């Protein structure tokens, strides 16, 4: 078994990998070309679906940005020498890391008002912003754990060496420890990014106009079973096209870091 994979392995694996990138789009293309009326309907709906997918990307980018900033701070605070700081942060991380994403999206959607009053002006508080917050909360909890793990994985001798060179605790963290953490936490951070991107589909359940919602709209408008199938395959292909490269890259980075 090992012998055969050794000899023909790399080339064959490379082929299957490149095949994986195009498999789903290829299915869609061939099907749309063999049934032209279906293909035409699909082309008509593609802009609508694309506008939905833009929303997915927007939500995931914003949620990850906020989640990373807050999470990195929380991760450092989790290691703070003061219990008063540490315990609330640890509790926050534990609760929101264990909470289902869907529950948090529901929570932010139903708890926050639909508009906010700032100095007498009514500002709308759209659902998609609530979904961003709903996903930024678990993202921040995960990033906090990733950061904490990365900081703890740096050998203590480095802290001691920094101290010996006259760095303060904060300076050691800022200039010596954190730069190394960035490298170590990159693969899990990318895993999180792809999992948050996939979780944006949950926003459709609270009525945010994103890809899954758009596909459901389209299939109820067209009312053709074959269109429904191809619409959902398009949804899968879109998410796959976004998440599969990320997961490939993550695995490559992991392997390289493990080897180093």
């Amino acid at each position, binding site marked *: *078994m*090992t012998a*055969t*994979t050794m000899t023909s392995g790399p080339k064959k694996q490379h082929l*299957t990998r490149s095949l*994986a990138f195009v*498999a*789903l789009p290829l299915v869609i293309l061939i099907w749309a070309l063999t049934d032209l009326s279906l293909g035409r309907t699909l082309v008509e709906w593609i802009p609508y679906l694309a506008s939905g997918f833009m929303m997915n990307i927007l939500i995931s980018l914003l949620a990850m940005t906020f989640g990373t900033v807050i999470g990195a701070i929380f991760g450092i605070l989790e290691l703070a020498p003061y219990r008063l700081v540490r315990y609330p942060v640890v509790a926050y991380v*534990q*609760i929101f890391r*264990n*909470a*289902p*994403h*869907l*529950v948090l999206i*529901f*929570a932010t959607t*139903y*708890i926050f008002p639909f508009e906010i009053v700032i100095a007498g002006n009514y500002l709308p508080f759209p659902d998609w912003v609530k979904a961003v917050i709903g996903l930024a909360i678990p993202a921040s909890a995960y990033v906090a754990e990733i950061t904490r793990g990365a900081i703890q994985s740096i050998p203590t001798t480095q802290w001691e060496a920094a101290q010996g060179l006259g760095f303060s605790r904060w300076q050691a963290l800022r200039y010596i420890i954190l730069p190394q953490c960035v490298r170590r936490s990159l693969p899990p951070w990318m895993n999180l990014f*792809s999992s948050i991107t*996939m*979780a*944006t*589909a*949950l926003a*459709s*359940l609270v009525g945010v106009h994103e890809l*899954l919602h758009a596909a*459901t709209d389209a*299939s109820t408008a067209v009312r053709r*079973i074959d269109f*429904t*199938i191809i619409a*959902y*395959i398009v*949804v*899968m292909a879109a*998410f*796959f096209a976004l*998440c*599969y490269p990320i*997961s490939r890259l993550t695995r490559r980075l992991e392997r390289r870091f493990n080897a180093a």
Partner: protein
Amino acid sequence: MQDSSILNTFIAMMDRIGLNYEFLATGYEATIWRDGFITTLYLIALLIPVSLVAGLVFAACLTSGRPFLSAPVRGFVEITRNTPTLVQLMFSFLVLNTFVSNLVGGAQNNPLTPFFWVVAVVGLHIAALHAEAMRAGIEAVPSSMVEAARGMGFSQWQILRHVELPLAFRASLPAIVNNLINLVKLTTVGNAIAVSEITYASIMVWTQRDNVVSLMIVILVFFSAINIVVARLGIWVERKLAVPGYGL
């Protein structure tokens, strides 16, 4: 009598700090909510063995070295890992379920309930993650051990059963426990196709009572508690199975 007085004091106490649990005193909504908890627990209890067994089969296929077994499973695993579970669930429920209905002649004859689809989709999704973890574990088994077993006349299946799996399972246990925690969280997608698990039941309650915060606190505590139990059980199993001197 005793029960209801405790309940009433609890409701009054919570009311004082601004949380509304009045619905617990009514029969109907309290039943819906309690059944929601039971459904979620039932889903979890059912999904853990389903996902483990399916994951084991997938892992065996992935490491079998036979392309006709490993290629389809690899394709399935990659698609499952890189597309949202909710989309898979909607696809299965709207497309595959319709196929089954047409096959048996009408939706009224269709034996497959939304509950079945949640178990199937979430179970197979987590199974794909388990398979990846176990595959890594199997590949981490030192090749000298496999060769020794082959030298002693073990068949491929016996090597998997007696040499690779026992070691691989121990090595991949932390990843498997992690997946199980994901599984617990994923049961909530059942909400999308009207499986009356806890979030679905809670929506029924809070649309009537407008007490989202009160219910949310209980749900968050509930999921934290389940996940702590799952994680603890994982650590316990890990200790039980530890092979002294092997570093696992």
